[in-house]
């Protein structure tokens, strides 16, 4: 018996549980997504105080209109060559994803994650950052590695956990670590990279370096404590860091409402910390480029951190272990009002007379062949599950810089187990 009976004049409380607008079978109408014109967002000077442009955390910075024309104050006026490079890198990311997704379906590896529909987020940023700026990525920023020229075969070796994998088969596929390409080791625990990026940026500032850090997380994991710790630290010490929140609408099957999207934008998180906040069209590679360039300039001139919300859409499942048809309308990816980032930049270049359909098709074919050739090469080093690709002894190496006695003892035990079972090189016990 509750106390309610004694307070019968009060209405009962009700718990609000967010619900996405469309579920499987529903028709999709994204009419409520506001897509402002490209000239709606002003571009503040990078030395302006963050509290002078709070409006930008609630609007949508855009450069490319849906008809392919570029405009507005944020137009970076890139050369056709620079734009063609970005287009090519986005197409390469898509081709790579396509091939590796299929490899997983063929049983060649355990897991894969595509960035279909959100390629502009990583490609635009990589184009705007210096190559030696340090990236603390989440798991859908493989475009940074591709932009920076990382060898496709090396990336595939990691995905296959084969004998060419320099991470020695220790990490889940796509959890790359590429120090030479300014790409931090990816963690499966969400948003742990946020305070780490701040720490790296603070160290760079403390040492009088010129390099800055950038980090990425999904909108869902802005709910993690690490996100907020990182924002506090970055604000307090004016760390030269760029926080990217990739709002692709879905965190596995939980829509963005479960991270607080019904109440405000994710860029608005910046306001409470006194950090510069921009909400941008994440399917517009030029807007991503322009916003990143602007944020990088702020960081490099000791104006502190910037939080960029990339408003985009995850057109594919969360991973190969996910089936989005079970929780969202099949119509969503095509109805997404901000379109496809590759199509948008392609149409822009075509409109400028700097590109055409035939060249685009030829590029796609070339990239597909390139990825295919790399895959062949990588598979020479083995695929996951076909025997052990790393010497079993390596399991014990690198837990510490020097192997302590208890690990040496366990390593010896494993050697003995294998010897007594007659298993020498590959093969499992």
């Amino acid at each position, binding site marked *: 018996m509750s106390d309610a009976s004694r307070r019968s004049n009060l209405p009962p409380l009700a718990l609000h549980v967010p619900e996405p607008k469309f579920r499987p079978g529903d028709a999709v109408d994204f009419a409520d997504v506001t897509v402002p014109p490209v000239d709606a967002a002003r571009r503040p000077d990078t030395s302006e105080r963050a509290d002078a442009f709070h409006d930008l955390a609630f609007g949508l910075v855009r450069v490319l209109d849906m008809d392919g024309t570029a405009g507005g104050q944020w137009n970076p006026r890139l050369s056709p060559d620079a734009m063609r490079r970005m287009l090519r890198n986005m197409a390469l990311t898509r081709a790579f994803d396509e091939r590796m997704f299929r490899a997983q379906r063929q049983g060649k590896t355990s897991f894969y994650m595509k960035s279909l529909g959100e390629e502009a987020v990583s490609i635009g940023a990589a184009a705007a950052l210096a190559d030696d700026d340090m990236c603390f990525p989440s798991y859908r920023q493989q475009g940074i590695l591709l932009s920076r020229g990382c060898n496709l075969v090396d990336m595939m070796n990691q995905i296959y956990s084969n004998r060419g994998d320099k991470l*020695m088969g*220790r*990490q889940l596929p796509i959890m790359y670590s590429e120090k030479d390409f300014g790409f931090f080791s990816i963690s499966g625990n969400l948003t742990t990279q946020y305070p780490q990026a701040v720490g790296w940026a603070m*160290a760079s500032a*403390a040492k009088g370096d010129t390099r800055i850090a950038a980090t990425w997380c999904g909108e869902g994991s802005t709910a993690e404590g690490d996100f907020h710790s990182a924002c*506090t630290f970055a604000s307090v010490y004016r760390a030269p860091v760029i926080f990217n929140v990739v709002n692709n609408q879905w965190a596995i099957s939980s829509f963005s409402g479960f991270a607080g999207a019904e109440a405000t934008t994710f860029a608005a998180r910046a306001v409470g910390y006194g950090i510069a906040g921009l909400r941008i069209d994440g399917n517009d590679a030029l807007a991503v480029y322009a916003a990143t360039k602007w944020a990088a300039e702020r960081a490099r001139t000791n104006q502190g951190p910037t939080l960029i919300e990339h408003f985009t859409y995850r057109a594919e499942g969360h991973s190969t272990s996910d089936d989005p048809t079970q929780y969202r309308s099949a119509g969503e990816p095509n109805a997404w009002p901000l379109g496809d980032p590759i199509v948008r930049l392609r149409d822009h270049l075509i409109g400028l007379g700097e590109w055409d359909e035939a060249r685009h098709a030829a590029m796609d074919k070339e990239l597909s062949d390139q990825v295919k050739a790399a895959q062949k090469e990588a598979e020479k080093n083995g695929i996951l599950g076909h025997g052990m690709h790393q010497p079993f002894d390596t399991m014990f190496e690198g837990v510490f810089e020097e192997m302590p006695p*208890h690990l040496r003892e366990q390593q010896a035990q494993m050697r003995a187990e294998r010897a007594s079972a007659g298993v020498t090189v590959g093969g499992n016990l």
Partner: protein
Amino acid sequence: MNMIQAINSAMDVMMARDPDVIVMGEDVGYFGGVFRATAGLQAKYGKTRVFDTPITECGIIGVAVGMGAYGLRPVPEIQFADYIYPALDQLVSEAARLRYRSAGEFTAPITVRSPFGGGIFGGQTHSQSPEGIFTHVSGLKTVIPSTPYDAKGLLIAAIEDNDPTIFFEPKRIYNGPFDGHYDRPSKNWSAHPGGEVPEDYYRIDLGTANVVRAGNDVTILAYGTMVHVAMNTIETLGIDAEIVDLRSLVPLDIETIEASVKKTGRCVIVHEATRTGGFGAELSAQVQERCFHHLEAPIERVTGFDTPYPHSLEWAYFPGPVRIGDALKKVMKD
């Protein structure tokens, strides 16, 4: 020197030697720490090398990991070990595994200092001994000194170490050794040999236990405050015990432990942390595995109880001389 001064001296020595060593944490800067362990360091080395942080332990450790990945050697302070739990994910999933998961591309050469343990009427949020949580994690080192001399030498070794290290400081003995009798006047370190601390650089390698008293009847395995309590207990009882101060739990100096137990044939393990799944269980298992045929009595564990640390009943909870004495008498009977 007392232990706080020794710890301060270790950081001072290392900051002078290596410009990449930085100190960070709540209140560690201008004020010099609530226990004064970082006193004077900011004035000497500047605000970019010694600074206060926001109150977010996961932020402190996460930022330290990033600084370590850049190439610095951060020495973050967690003001009380009881507050380390918000940082657990950064320690367990990130710092501990970074070297392994990146195959050596990135490392986290951080030394997390944190006062731990009870006996100061700190209640359940200023008294815990969480070392067992960290010794369970692959990739972390866990170090606990018992004297000012050891504290300085071990802390210097930890700061020089390229792996993440948890350095727990037994705050009950910051100012002087403690014999387990809370109602006696406190002693200070000046009369104790471990209080003689050189001003300059020296190191004690991690993973080297110290036989602080040689004996023949029974081996007592202890660390931190409990080394002193055990020492006092055997002197009161007149038992010829060998006391091994572990100093570092990971890596563990099992050779010294094994040699001692094989010599004495008996083993009592003493720690302040709760019993179930505590580090004593690990020690007990290892001693049993290695010394079973040499044992003349079952191994005894003397620990805190499996309750939260009670404020007013602190001295009933604390594994003091009576509890240790009972265990010693029990193993000596066989």
